[in-house]
């Protein structure tokens, strides 16, 4: 009988150690309201703290806490403090739905924000739509607007909003013969649909394409075909770790040279960091936010400074998205004078500039974020810029988020 008890004691001890070791940046939980008083306005966050997007979830949780603390310090919203209730959806779509349900039924939240995977966004939307609760989707999805609830908004960038600007830039600055790599899921298919529609108009020839399964670690089997086609641009829509692997392998096989440029469909601070300067130097990428774009957008500088002061690292695009979300919600509640979902939803659409210029429109709750094309720095260039650890990119072109970027309503 003694052995199991001993083991149980050891386990409890390890639990305690881990729980204590978790700093603010890594623990979900409840944010404590300060400053304002009164019945708190509850915001539920659903994010994947385990799995491949865990660091992005942390960014969003951090940004949410920063925004909430700033708002509460300034007196809260309608005299009431904001309160965060953070849940882990474990990167599973059904768990995201369940957490949303739990937040609505048990915690009675006024608004839900999250998550990082597109499937999870749609799952949460299913629930909030049926329950009549406000929902802000904080990661990229192009399908959400087709089935959104009337109180659903999308504060992360969408492919169709980014496409006109970035495709045009690439065709004019990098080349017109493209080999395109799509990740084989909704996100990649959306991009393929967009390219199929617009390529000829831009004068672009797609010399070949690859539909790579999501989570492909080994692109080396695709590389010989790409090399043989000798494209001017290799356009990689695979994101995150997939993109980094492709870059590694392509570099090892000598795919990128003076004649063949590479364009990353989307990247972010943490991805660039894990890739390292050697891989991203002199490559180009689309970024929905870059902390170093302060000369173009003063709000970016202010946000980056506040975030960095608190968390020691600059914010990435996901942090910007969540920060905007909380601030937009607070603004809308103030404007509506109530937390009633239909009144707040009516007050949300409009232009905002908390981290960079954005525009949220009324017909489908979609957002136009500022889009930036960034060129990767070498380690030396980063040192010269004064920030050897984080000056990963420099802004080459950008377009401020405005209504004109969005495709016509209902498309």
């Amino acid at each position, binding site marked *: 009988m003694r052995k199991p008890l001993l083991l149980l004691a050891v386990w409890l001890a390890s639990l305690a150690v881990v729980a204590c070791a978790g700093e603010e940046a890594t623990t979900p939980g409840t944010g404590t309201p300060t400053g304002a008083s009164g019945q708190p306005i509850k915001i539920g966050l659903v994010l994947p703290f385990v799995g491949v997007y865990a660091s992005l979830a942390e960014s969003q949780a951090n940004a949410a806490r920063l925004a909430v603390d700033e708002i509460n310090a300034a007196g809260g919203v309608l005299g009431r403090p904001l309160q965060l209730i953070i849940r882990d959806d474990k990167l599973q779509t059904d768990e995201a739905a369940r957490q949303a349900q739990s937040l609505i039924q048990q915690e009675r939240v006024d608004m839900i924000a999250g998550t990082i995977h597109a499937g999870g966004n749609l799952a949460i939307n299913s629930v909030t739509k049926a329950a009549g609760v406000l929902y802000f989707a904080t990661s990229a999805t192009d399908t959400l607007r087709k089935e959104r609830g009337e109180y659903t908004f999308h504060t992360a960038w969408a492919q169709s909003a980014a496409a006109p600007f970035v495709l045009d830039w690439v065709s004019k600055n990098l080349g017109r013969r493209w080999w395109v790599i799509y990740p084989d899921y909704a996100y990649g298919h959306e991009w393929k649909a967009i390219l199929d529609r617009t390529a000829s108009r831009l004068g672009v020839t797609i010399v070949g394409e690859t539909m790579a399964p999501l989570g492909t670690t*080994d692109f*080396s*089997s695709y590389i010989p075909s790409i090399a*043989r086609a000798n494209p001017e641009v290799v356009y990689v829509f695979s994101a995150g770790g997939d993109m*980094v*692997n492709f870059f*590694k392998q392509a570099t090892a096989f000598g795919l990128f040279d003076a004649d063949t440029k590479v364009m990353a469909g989307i990247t972010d601070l*943490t991805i660039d960091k894990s890739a*390292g300067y050697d891989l991203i130097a002199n490559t180009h990428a689309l970024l929905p936010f870059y902390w170093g774009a302060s000369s173009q957008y003063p709000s970016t500088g202010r946000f980056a400074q506040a975030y960095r002061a608190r968390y020691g690292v600059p914010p990435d695009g996901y942090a910007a998205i969540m920060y905007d979300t909380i601030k937009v919600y607070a603004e809308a509640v103030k404007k509506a004078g109530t937390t009633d979902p239909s009144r707040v939803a009516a007050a949300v659409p409009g232009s905002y500039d908390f981290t960079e210029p954005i525009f949220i429109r009324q017909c489908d709750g979609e957002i136009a974020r500022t889009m930036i094309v960034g060129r990767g720095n070498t380690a030396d260039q980063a040192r010269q810029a004064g920030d050897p650890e984080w000056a990963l990119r420099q802004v080459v072109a950008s377009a401020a988020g405005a209504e004109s970027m969005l495709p016509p309503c209902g498309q």
Partner: protein
Amino acid sequence: MEEVASQVLVGLANGVMLALLAAGLSLIFGQMNVVNFAHGAIYALGAYLGFLMVDRLGVFWLALVGAPIGLILVGIVTERWLLRPLLDRTGLEPLLMTFGLSYVITESIRVGFGKIGKPVDIPGELSGTIPLGFMDFSKYLAVAAAIGVVLLVLTWLVLERTDLGRIIRAVAQDSAMSMALGIDVIHVRRIVFCLGLALAALAAVLSAPLRGVHPDMGLEILVTVFVVVVVGGLGSFGGSVAGGLLIGLVTSLVSMEWPQWKDVAIFILMSLVLLARPRGLLGRE
């Protein structure tokens, strides 16, 4: 034709890496009859140890030696305290234990090294390509595959030509009889377990410059390794090599024409093998 040739080369090179990893799993299964679910997590741990060494010491080749040693140390502790007490019990406790271990190892990596991946660069002397006429082949991948082949041959030599190898094979075949004949079965099992881990570490370090290093890399590759081991033959070293090369080849060729089928193809292959010839290509039963 050239296209096929280049796909074949790449597929075989990747297959060597898979074979290293699968050989470790197969050896462990042959010895202890345990399907080691933690093999993927151990692979990840090996990769991170490798990264740590490259990061601190600056030389890639030291990582190739250091990571296996590190994993062996981990293996000794794990085997003594966590696996050995379970091996005499009937049932599937070792399986559940390896499940739990895979979570523990993966999450410890996440807690210790952070949640995003780490970059491991190709050692300077190996960057660049080898022009082969019909394609340019990555110098690093070529050298890594060559090293992998050497390691596999060495392991095969140990297993087939040395006394130790004979003892290992004996214990795998019939541990009760081996014990009756005076062989220290516990000692042998520990050796084989550590050997399996060392192979995994080598595979991890060799692949790191091309695949990167991130906490979930173990889970991603785990099921593929199972497929290799099954197709090659559970418990058979030669089988893992053959299986690894075959799976690498199949994946590479399939992705040429039908990239979406790249992952299903190996499962279809696995079910066909299991239905037609369950002991695999080279397995004994």
